[in-house]
């Protein structure tokens, strides 16, 4: 009898983010509640662990900047809501950092499974360090997966949201290491006529017909 293979699926970029309802430190929430704002949903392996604690402080410190970008924040781990509350209170007491975002208590691993947060090669019982960036129409736009050992970079999470919102607003792409204010990439010409026009367009700077950049005004 062949062994059954367990399939662990991941959500897909550009597709609707999987809907869920979950118990959180701020009551029962549905993903649908966040429609109209962007959402950074992130998972951490376990409460009362050091790397996760530094990340919670980091996320709390960028929460106001996220809100300026019309973006909310929500955490998740496979811990109880009581553990979450105790840990949040500990962070506030010991590190003087208020945690202002809800944290999902995913004891039955329902959300973790929907979003492919568990990496059995790392841990069968804890979520890895995952970040899901969901836009205001509830489409999944970006995912970041980090291992248990390595804390995430908050600047990069902010940067990705700024880049996605810039792309949406201006119909452009963003190059490697892009920061707000940097030049953006004009979508490559997809017809011969447009390719010819592009090389003569004074408003864009082209290395070649397919590689053109411009400043946003």
């Amino acid at each position, binding site marked *: 009898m062949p062994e059954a293979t367990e399939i662990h699926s991941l959500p897909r970029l550009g597709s609707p983010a999987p809907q869920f309802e979950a118990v959180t430190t701020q*009551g*029962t929430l*549905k993903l649908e*509640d966040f429609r109209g*704002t962007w959402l950074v949903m992130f998972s951490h392996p376990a409460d009362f662990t050091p790397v996760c604690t530094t990340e919670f402080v980091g996320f709390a410190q960028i929460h106001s900047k996220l809100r300026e970008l019309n973006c909310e924040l929500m955490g998740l781990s496979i811990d109880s809501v009581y553990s979450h509350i105790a840990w949040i209170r500990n962070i506030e007491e010991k590190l003087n950092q208020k945690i202002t975002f809800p944290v999902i208590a995913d004891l039955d691993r329902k959300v973790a499974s929907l979003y492919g947060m568990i990496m059995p090669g790392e841990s069968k019982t804890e979520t890895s360090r995952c970040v899901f960036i969901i836009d205001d129409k509830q489409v999944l736009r970006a995912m970041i997966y980090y291992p248990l050992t390595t804390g995430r970079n908050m600047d990069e999470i902010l940067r990705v949201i700024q880049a996605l919102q810039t792309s949406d607003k201006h119909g452009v792409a963003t190059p490697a290491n892009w920061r707000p204010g940097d030049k953006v990439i004009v979508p490559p010409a997809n017809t011969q006529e447009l390719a010819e026009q592009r090389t003569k367009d004074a408003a864009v700077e082209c290395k070649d017909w397919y590689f053109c950049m411009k400043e946003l005004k």
Partner: protein
Amino acid sequence: MPCVNPDGTLTDSARALLRLLGNPAAPEEIARRLDRPLFSVRASLRELVGADLVRAEGGEFVVTERGQSRL
């Protein structure tokens, strides 16, 4: 925010929301007037509708008689 404590009493945030809903209001307006995130307001309204303390009227919400009596 949760609206009903385990002992059945209303939370402070629920009372503030019920007081505001003496006149119908949309979630976005409630969020603005209470300075609360929209997701939190939506979740609270869902709970209060489920407890028959608030009812939906089109895209707006208003306190019910039962909700009024709990204030």
